[in-house]
């Protein structure tokens, strides 16, 4: 039985129950105490997100300063449980408009109870789509959508929409100005050895959309991915245009995308939900353009001195620039004094994370920047342990650049009324876990 949860608890960091909801009777009421004593107050916390205590399994995750704990006693479907929690939190966020934390829960606990009641029944997840729930659970909750309507009118039932072919979109939407915003957000993960070899590198990308379109539009998105282009040239029986094509390792789509059509024609066609949503996710491992190269040299001079030299090179187009570049260079715990010289930006020693933090607000393409530092260490007696050098970590954002080289070729909007739409496309590449060993 793919039961996702028998009970769900929201706890703050001290273990106080903020909200709890029991769905099935197979778990006792004192389960949360067990969680507190055996997981929260021990080293277990953060050791493993699934634990069994006395016949019950606790599946938990921390989101901001709240622990969300699912309790089950049967052999439940864990992946479903975690996904449920994530989706539920997304739903709450869309209701509160912003942060999900202890205060938000305290301020909205009646609403959360209402939602918890709707999104799961007897352990089986029901409908978690904010678009539909918002039709009949309103933040004020002052009136039922049904009672306010005149009686003779057929009741527009929110739940009926689930059955329709397009469950994620309401009918009869209308905007004065029809606009579509498309964001391609990529995060680059890199692991580079101290010798400069790329050990592991991949890009996970998301296509985020914001739609303000009237009626029931049909959208078609064309990307420069290899499969799609090949299929297209095959269908139109003309040779593919030269230019860079991207090989996507794997793609997943929002439920609105017609997957059958994607598999047969390799085109992404869909009727979008209203407002903001994540259209697709992809992963690429081949042919990644790394935006930055980092060349570190760290010399340990005796027991009390160190010399650190880090050169960062931007290898994207000269007209582009990166924003919010942060380079975290780890130093030993017993660092006493640091002296820096940087060619751009600012550096600081942060003893709480044992790092030199070097920030560069704007980093133009095809340039390089260096930091050289001298570090004095407190000499420790009998300390034999050599320092385990953690990797240098980097954060950045490069607008108008995609590490994968992915480009939007077209975005077609078709609606029966034939209105004109304005399409906006943005690209941005961020650092995922960008690690360079030294």
């Amino acid at each position: 039985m793919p039961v996702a949860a028998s009970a769900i608890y929201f706890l703050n960091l001290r273990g106080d129950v903020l909200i709890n909801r029991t769905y099935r009777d197979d778990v006792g009421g004192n389960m949360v105490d067990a969680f507190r004593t055996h997981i929260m107050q021990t080293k277990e916390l953060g050791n493993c997100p699934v634990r069994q205590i006395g016949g019950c399994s606790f599946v938990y995750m921390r989101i901001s300063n709240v622990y969300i704990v699912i309790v089950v006693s049967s052999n439940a479907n864990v992946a479903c449980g975690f996904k449920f929690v994530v989706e539920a939190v997304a739903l709450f966020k869309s209701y509160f408009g912003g942060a999900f934390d202890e205060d938000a829960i305290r301020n909205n606990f009646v609403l959360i109870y209402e939602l918890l009641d709707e999104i799961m029944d007897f352990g089986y997840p029901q409908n978690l789509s904010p678009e539909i729930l918002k039709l009949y659970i309103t933040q004020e909750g002052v009136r039922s959508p049904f009672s306010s309507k005149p009686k003779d009118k057929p009741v527009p039932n929110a739940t009926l929409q689930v059955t329709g072919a397009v469950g994620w979109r309401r009918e009869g939407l209308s905007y004065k100005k029809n606009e579509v915003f498309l964001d391609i957000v990529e995060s680059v993960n890199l692991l580079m050895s101290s010798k400069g070899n790329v050990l592991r590198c991949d890009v996970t990308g998301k296509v985020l959309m914001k739609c303000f379109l009237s009626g029931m539009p049909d959208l078609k998105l064309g990307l420069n991915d290899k499969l799609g282009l090949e299929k297209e040239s095959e269908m139109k029986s003309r040779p593919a245009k030269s230019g860079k094509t991207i090989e996507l390792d794997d793609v997943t789509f929002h439920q609105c995308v017609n997957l059958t059509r994607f598999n047969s024609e390799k085109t992404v066609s869909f009727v979008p939900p209203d407002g903001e949503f994540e259209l697709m996710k992809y992963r690429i491992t081949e042919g990644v353009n790394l935006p930055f190269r980092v060349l570190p040299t760290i010399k340990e001079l005796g027991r009390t001195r160190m010399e650190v030299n880090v050169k960062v090179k931007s290898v994207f187009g000269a007209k582009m620039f990166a924003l919010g570049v942060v380079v975290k260079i780890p130093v030993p715990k017993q660092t006493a004094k640091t002296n820096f010289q940087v060619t751009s930006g600012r550096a600081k020693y942060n003893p709480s994370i044992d790092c030199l933090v070097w920030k560069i607000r704007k980093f133009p393409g095809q340039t390089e920047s260096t930091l050289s530092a001298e570090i004095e260490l407190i000499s420790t007696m009998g300390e034999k342990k050599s320092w385990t050098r953690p990797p240098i970590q980097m954060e950045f954002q490069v607008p108008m650049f995609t590490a994968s080289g992915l480009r939007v070729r077209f975005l077609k909007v078709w609606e029966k009324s034939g209105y004109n739409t304005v399409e906006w496309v943005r690209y941005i590449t961020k650092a995922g876990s960008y690690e360079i060993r030294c």
Partner: protein
Amino acid sequence: IVGVFFFHLSTHETPPVNQNISTILAAPSSDLSSILSDRVTSRWFLLRWISRRTNSNHISTATISAMPPPAASSRYPSPSQPSGKSEVTDLKSQLRQLAGSRAPGVDDSKRDLFKKVISYMTIGIDVSSVFGEMVMCSATSDIVLKKMCYLYVGNYAKGNPDLSLLTINFLQRDCKDEDPMIRGLALRSLCSLRVPNLVEYLLGPLGSGLKDNNSYVRTIAVTGVLKLYHISASTCIDAEFPATLKSLMLHDSDAQVVANCLAALQEIWSLEASHSEEACREKESLLSKPLIYYFLNRIKEFNEWAQCLILELAVKYVPSDSNDIFDIMNLLEDRLQHANGAVVLATVKVFLQLTLSMTDVHQQVYERIKSPLLTLVSSGSPEQSYAILSHLHLLVVRAPFIFASDYKHFYCQYNEPSYVKKLKLEMLTAIANESNTYEIVTELCEYAANVDIEIARESIRAVGKIALQQYDVNAIVDRLLQFLEMEKDYVTAETLVLVKDLLRKHPQWSHDCISVVGGISSKNIQEPKAKAALIWMLGEYAQDMSDAPYILENLIENWEEEHSAEVRLHLLTAAMKCFFKRAPETQKALGIALAAGIADFHQDVHDRALFYYRVLQYDVHVAERVVSPPQQAVSAFADTQSSEIKDRIFDEFNSLSVIYQKPSYIFTDKEHRGPFEFSDELGSTSITPEVSSDIVPAQQFEANDKDLLLSTDEKDDNKGLSSNNGSAYTAPYESSNISSQMQELAISGPAASATTTQSSFDFDDLLGLGLSTAPAPTPSPPLLKLNARAALDPRAFQQKWRQLPISLSQEYSVNPQGIAALTVPQSLIKHMQSHSIHCIASGGQSPNFKFFFFAQKEAEPLDYLTECIINSSSAKAQIKVKADEQSTSQAFATVFETALSKFGMP
């Protein structure tokens, strides 16, 4: 809440305040957050202000309670909660005042009070005493009020069955409300009361709910039927709700209704199946081809969660031919691209299970699902990745070669939580082969320098495991030896243990290793395991290490400082081995060691020392043959999990079993849960957290885990030695000659006579394991006659099962005819009954069935209880017998086996 508040202000007619608020609201909303915070602060201020002005007015008190109430609890130290008695009494009187009132605005005051009640309920204050008042206040058209009231009632009805009768009335009335929303909510609450003697009131509303023209109400009614079944199965069956659900499932236009029907029917029928053949047939019919295709063809109409449900159903479907398999796979192919990881994983399970019998396609499936799974791992929170990684881990271990080229995906990131890193390390170990070992080991060596000591240790162990898997260990040995040069205690400790294991398997490397190991000072090693490893090597390679006797002597002189029994045991053995190789240098040390060992308080140490002493006294050459025979390389270390258990976990893909790496019966059956059961005491200990109380259960758990390991090992043994196994228990017959030998060996000693009879059992077992000489045929047990009309009620069975120890556990193969006949549990139950073995409970689905049988000895009220787990894919049956009379349990097992072997025979 601000809106609500507004209303109060106007009823109070406090103009200055009102203005204040409206100015705030009128402010240009450029910076929303600052306004919000403004609003909040001003509200606090205002509230205080009002309460000062209009004391003694109940509405104003209510207004104050509109402050987010749980915030009040943050004053209290965690996790103890206030009793809140005075607050509850206060609430009670306020509610009472409002109950009859029809004044405008009364709903809002009620709402605030209700909020307060709910918030108290949440933080654990018992507010059940206001039950009556809550019910009285529930006459309202305000939907939020109703919802809060339903929540409250649902929470407390179970504990107050008498009071819940009060609610029936208003809930039943609401079930007929014109607003479908209210109808649905009321029906849900009505079914959630969970009071057994109120079920009769459920039937009417449920029946009409199922026929409601609004799908929202129908979805709720369907789940309501399932809830009713759990409260009172017979009522639910008698009202023929399952049949109604079935027709709804096939004909309803709403996907969610259909999905809930499916969930409810699956649950009801699998629970019913154990005692009703009809339910069993119905359960089977859910897996019929037309129904499966009906669902799979419509799968896109369902939401993501319902899709999981359908996919889970499809897993159990037995396809008729390969075309069938390919049809389903083509239908579901695109589900692998779904954004919801749960759907992807469920699809993966369908693909894997469908193709189990087609090796080539199965392998292609692995290739196909690889990339979606890897994507899921890299997206989402660490907890989600962990869940997916656990599944990937299972697949990687099953088919390492398919993932061999993807090893880079399993490299750890610096900031990943350790539970993710651990899994990744295990996977790297599993997929290491000739082509990627170098890269993987290089990477693992990086982790050995990790800040997180636990991960560093794990990675060293991983390197060691790879070394033990590979034929070409040359380079890895160098790496291991480099670890020893890192001069970190824990690295050295782990490495020593590994070098020891490596030498046991590849003695040819001794030369390189010993020279390095010899240079390690034993003073730097504190961990017992590592010390034991070092001492083992000193003993084993005493002839190659010049100062081995002196190091040992040194260690033996500090015998008292050595607290671990493991180390002392190893010291004794090492001293013996060393003595046989370099007698003059070791003699003195050995003497000291034996003396200290015999005087040791630890039983094992004492016994071993005494044994060595006597063997030496008897004949030194015999002693050498016993203690230090020529070295034998270990060809393979025992696997901790049998392949059968692994298969069972694989069958339970996409569930907790995969995360725990245990089959589900271990952690869901009550008897397997071990000594640590939940009790109320736990609640009390939780209030006063003590360090000791935290540690003890954890240890118990560890012990429990070890227990599990032991039992699986045992099963392994059983498989190999099913013929010998029985003999171990009837040892007294043929072990007498061995024990007499023992007595010869043991020259004389105070404890000798007491221990020999005890140890003869172990000895016999040991010999049975070590040598393949089959012991004399087991004397055939007297034939056991069973009572054909035995009776035992389930409760008595449960009680006995808990009390009695397992007297026998065995594994048989079931003949193919039997497997073929075992399509439903009932067939076997009938068959066994004809052999006077009765079934008390059964369950499971193909391929795993589980039965509990009992039988009674004829003419005597002695019961035999048996748990029988049959896996139809591996054609194995595992039985555990518990008997009132231990001595005849073997005889019973024989009867059982004979009966089982006849199953399926014409």
